[in-house]
């Protein structure tokens, strides 16, 4: 892994923003198609929506904790951007930390604080409900998610993302540890409170955390969500899909193509699947996901001891 010069710290977030726009456009396209409208209108929809929110009036309720709400909303895109700094594009990465996997995990956990703050600070019952829903969801998805990350690290014997990519020269980790990969994708949906795990902003609680957000605040939260989804998709590539490995095309292009493919799958899943109730998902998380990820970690540890990986 080569660390990029300083411009990498500017280029990586820009690239992430392009991917996030793509995800938003694809989501709008799928919605337009399902509604019977011309799907191509979806491509410009995120831009139009952003312009609408930019000129929109910001409103607030009396008693809102503006400082906490604003920090929470701003933290969502910040966390996503910081998380992506350790994700390599081909052979280049902004920061090749020796604990890259833990860094990604720490930045992605900031979403917990962000969502709770945004919901609490609004001084609205719907925001509060959304905030508490997300914490319950977090307690259900975070441990399986951590074990999925750790399993990839165990397979490579290193917490450095570059080493994990290098360890997949022969066979991708998605094939060695399919359960960890599947759980990772599921938790990627959860950390962006997206798709079947979007209870924090659910329609049944009038938008939950986003219920009282308007104008720029709503724009920042929604952008942050797409950025987080894109960052999680980008991290899936070095962890489970061999990084930039691939024939003919340059490695950075392969990284980008794989990221776009993962992102498209996540957006499509969210479009197809209904929202799951949190209490049901919590039980699934603790009774099913946690044991299977532990077994997966055990299996991979044995593979490593037998030098099969």
């Amino acid at each position: 892994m080569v660390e990029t010069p300083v411009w990498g710290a500017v280029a990586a977030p820009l690239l992430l923003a392009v991917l996030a726009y793509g995800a938003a456009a694809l989501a709008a396209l799928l919605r337009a198609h399902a509604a019977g409208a011309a799907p191509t209108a979806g491509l410009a929809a995120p831009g139009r929506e952003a312009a609408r929110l930019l000129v929109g009036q910001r409103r607030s309720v009396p008693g809102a904790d503006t400082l906490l709400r604003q920090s929470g909303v701003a933290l969502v895109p910040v966390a996503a951007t910081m998380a992506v700094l350790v994700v390599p594009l081909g052979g280049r990465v902004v920061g090749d930390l020796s604990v890259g996997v833990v860094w990604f995990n720490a930045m992605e956990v900031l979403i917990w604080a962000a969502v709770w703050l945004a919901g609490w600070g609004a001084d609205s019952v719907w925001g509060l409900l959304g905030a508490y829903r997300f914490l319950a969801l977090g307690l259900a998805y975070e441990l399986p998610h951590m074990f999925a990350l750790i399993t990839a690290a165990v397979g490579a014997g290193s917490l450095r993302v570059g080493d994990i990519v290098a360890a997949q020269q022969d066979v991708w980790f998605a094939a060695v540890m399919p359960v960890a990969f599947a759980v990772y994708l599921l938790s990627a949906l959860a950390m962006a409170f997206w798709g079947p795990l979007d209870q924090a902003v659910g329609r049944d609680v009038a938008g939950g955390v986003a219920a009282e957000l308007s104008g720029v605040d709503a724009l920042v939260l929604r952008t942050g969500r797409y950025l987080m989804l894109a960052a999680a998709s980008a991290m899936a590539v070095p962890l489970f899909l061999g990084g930039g490995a691939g024939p003919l095309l340059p490695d950075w292009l392969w990284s980008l193509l794989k990221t776009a493919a993962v992102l498209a799958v996540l957006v499509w899943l969210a479009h197809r699947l209904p929202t799951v109730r949190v209490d049901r998902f919590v039980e699934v998380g603790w009774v099913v996901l946690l044991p299977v990820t532990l077994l997966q970690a055990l299996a991979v540890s044995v593979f490593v001891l037998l030098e099969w990986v």
Partner: protein
Amino acid sequence: MGEMVVFMVCAVGAVAAGIAVFRVDSMARATFALLASFVFTGVAVLLLLDLSYLGVLIILMMVMEMLVMAVFMIMYMMNPAGLTPMAMVHNRRGALAVSVAVFTALAAGIWLVPWPEAGAAPPPDPTESLGAALMGSHMLVMVVVGMVLFATMVAAVVLATDRGRYDRYGDDLRRGAADAPVRKGVGR
């Protein structure tokens, strides 16, 4: 020079956030002021001591821990939901005296303890060296204590819950469908 700046920012930030915990008038703000204090400490550990694993872990664990703590604090508070402003301190004078005394004692310790001179260059993996220095030959004891603590937590939860392990599948564990507390979860 750079190290000094990082240290000053982190030290002042951590202390200021710590003071803010007792100056703000809402449970949520107090929680996040405390979290900010821990994050400043984590950043200092990460950047100044080169203990990248521990530094990132402090930030990771503290964010999760504080969020869980916020839920419990607000749940057990005297006013419902804690949405109204409230004072964060009781017994102002006593609390102030105790905290000033503790702070002074700890700060004095920094100046009075004869710290060893750093001789050799830092080890290649400071985290591993720190672990060995802290645990050393007591690793087995620590691992066993960890298991005992974990077993205690599980036992406490089992004792506290009104549902036992046989409520789900019946006394002889032969009930076909689980009687789950949450319908349509893993059971029915």
